[in-house]
């Protein structure tokens, strides 16, 4: 077996018993990127020299013996909206094409402190706005299972890097489904933590009340190890919550016996791809066979989630993206006269179409005379959506749903109509509005051999229960062991 195809936990065992060096592992992953990334376009920046020097440092720690940090010597890819000191961070945008951050995001710092090797920065939709990675200002990533199909978005490069063995794990962000959708489309495990579980400090903001950082991994155990490394309170993010972080790996073996799994009727709708519905229902049957108890539930405001999201997220985006003015960092349009014209031309040239659409809609819904009708209304419906979940969790411990109504679609298939693209997130978006944790775990393949994911939604700070349930399921199914034909 090639070194690059190791799971994070297997590689850790080999590194600690000195059967493998961090430099060998890193070289293997770099070589894998060299031979396959022309097809997948996962990476925007590969940090070969830096990665090898981090691997060398990891090898010194491993050789010294004693306590080694948890991710020591593990090559990890980082979504390009997450700041990495000294390494270009573009957020997938031309406006930040040459931006080299003078500081690390807290999650980056935690990866470094855990001994990880940051192997490179991965592609995404511009400012994490999109569901296919086709909104990247540089180039779209491609699904390793079928290169004419999208990997999902916005964290598409994180998903393709892990699925194609170009990193042992990755970080992404999820504002409306941007971790879970690409995880499902690419057949890997992805987790969006509870809002406030992971620090957002140093993460390029899209919609601040919804954004959350989370891991992509080859299996559930790896996902638990990654979450452990990044979770916890951060004084530099005033929305991060100071509540104890459980030992996720220690709880993986607890099984699902007696666990009540809520099945919301609103998530099994007409127009779903039959193979997706069949695979998700089969997964629920599998959970029942393992001793869990499926219970029918209702989340009646589900159909309002996308409309609510596109009012709240665009409003927050229009405000967050006001900072890109071409003054202190980023692109500035040349040869303009006057300040306002400089701002307008800089932003016109620096932002892509989808970003402009969202800034425009967000500015409109916040503008005088429209605020109550749109933004305030959406915030009230957000309350109703959140209440649906809290009520449902009176009857169940975990909720199981499809991640998306279809498997990965073709490049170009949904670019003509933004609203059609937005509907890809129909099953993931309410989870962000409610601030809950959600996990995607592979649960089968469709007739074209494209991966399917089942989404598990948990109570606030119930990541441990999600991981425990997904682990029990994964132990009895073969889906996570299949590799794309690259």
């Amino acid at each position: 077996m090639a070194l690059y195809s190791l799971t994070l936990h297997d590689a850790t065992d080999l590194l600690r018993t000195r059967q493998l060096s961090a430099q060998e592992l890193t070289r293997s992953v770099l070589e894998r990127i060299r031979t396959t990334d022309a097809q997948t376009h996962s990476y925007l920046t590969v940090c070969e020299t830096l990665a090898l020097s981090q691997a060398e440092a990891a090898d010194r720690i491993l050789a010294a013996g004693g306590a080694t940090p948890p991710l020591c010597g593990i090559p990890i890819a980082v979504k390009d909206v997450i700041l990495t000191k000294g390494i270009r961070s573009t957020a997938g945008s031309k406006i930040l094409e040459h931006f080299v951050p003078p500081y690390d995001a807290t999650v980056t710092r935690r990866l470094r402190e855990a001994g990880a090797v940051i192997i490179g920065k991965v592609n995404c939709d511009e400012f994490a706005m999109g569901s296919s990675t086709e909104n990247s200002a540089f180039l779209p990533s491609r699904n390793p299972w079928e290169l004419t199909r999208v990997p999902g978005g916005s964290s598409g490069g994180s998903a393709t890097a892990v699925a194609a063995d170009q990193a042992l794990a990755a970080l992404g962000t999820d504002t409306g489904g941007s971790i879970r959708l690409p995880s499902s489309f690419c057949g890997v495990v992805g987790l969006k933590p509870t809002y406030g579980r992971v620090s957002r400090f140093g993460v390029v903001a899209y919609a601040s009340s919804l954004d959350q950082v989370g891991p992509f991994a080859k299996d559930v155990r790896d996902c638990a190890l990654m979450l452990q490394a990044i979770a916890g309170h951060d004084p530099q993010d005033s929305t991060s919550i100071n509540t104890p972080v459980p030992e996720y790996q220690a709880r993986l073996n607890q099984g699902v016996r007696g666990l009540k799994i809520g099945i919301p009727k609103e998530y099994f709708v007409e127009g779903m791809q039959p193979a997706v519905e069949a695979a998700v229902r089969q997964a629920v049957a599998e959970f029942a066979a393992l001793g869990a108890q499926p219970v029918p539930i209702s989340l009646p405001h589900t159909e309002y989630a996308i409309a609510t999201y596109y009012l709240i997220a665009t409003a927050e985006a229009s405000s967050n993206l006001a900072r890109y003015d071409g003054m202190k960092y980023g692109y500035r349009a040349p040869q303009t006269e006057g300040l306002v014209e400089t701002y307008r031309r800089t932003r016109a040239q620096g932002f892509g179409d989808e970003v402009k659409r969202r800034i425009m809609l967000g500015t409109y819904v916040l503008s005088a005379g429209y605020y109550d009708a749109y933004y305030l209304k959406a915030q009230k419906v957000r309350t109703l959506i959140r209440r649906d979940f809290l009520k449902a969790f009176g009857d169940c411990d975990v909720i199981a749903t499809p991640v998306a109504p279809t498997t990965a679609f073709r490049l170009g298939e949904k670019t003509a109509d933004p609203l059609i693209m937005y509907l890809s997130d129909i099953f993931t978006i309410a989870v962000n509005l409610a601030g809950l944790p959600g996990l995607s775990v592979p649960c089968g393949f469709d007739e074209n051999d494209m991966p399917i994911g089942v989404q598990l939604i948990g109570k606030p700070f119930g990541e441990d229960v999600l991981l425990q349930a997904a682990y029990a399921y994964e132990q009895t199914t073969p889906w996570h062991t299949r590799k794309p034909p690259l």
Partner: protein
Amino acid sequence: MRISREEVQRIALLARLELTSVEEAELIQHFDKMLTYVEKLNQLNTDGVEPTAHAVAVPSPLREDRVTNQADTNALLQNAPAREANFFKVPKIIE
């Protein structure tokens, strides 16, 4: 159409975006579609419902007012589109 070209131009000025006339036309269409779509929220009676700004309400934390970072002027200026000595160079602000 739910929004006029003049209104799109007004929003674009507020948003500090310069738009081509083709972009304006596309945005009129996009607004039309989106504002129609989000109208479904009006099916819901939200009288007396508190708005949610953050899913998890946390009080604003307070901290001591002391300097924790070191001034690294050069590192901060390295991303500047234009600089002069230790300053950001910007267009004239007062016209």
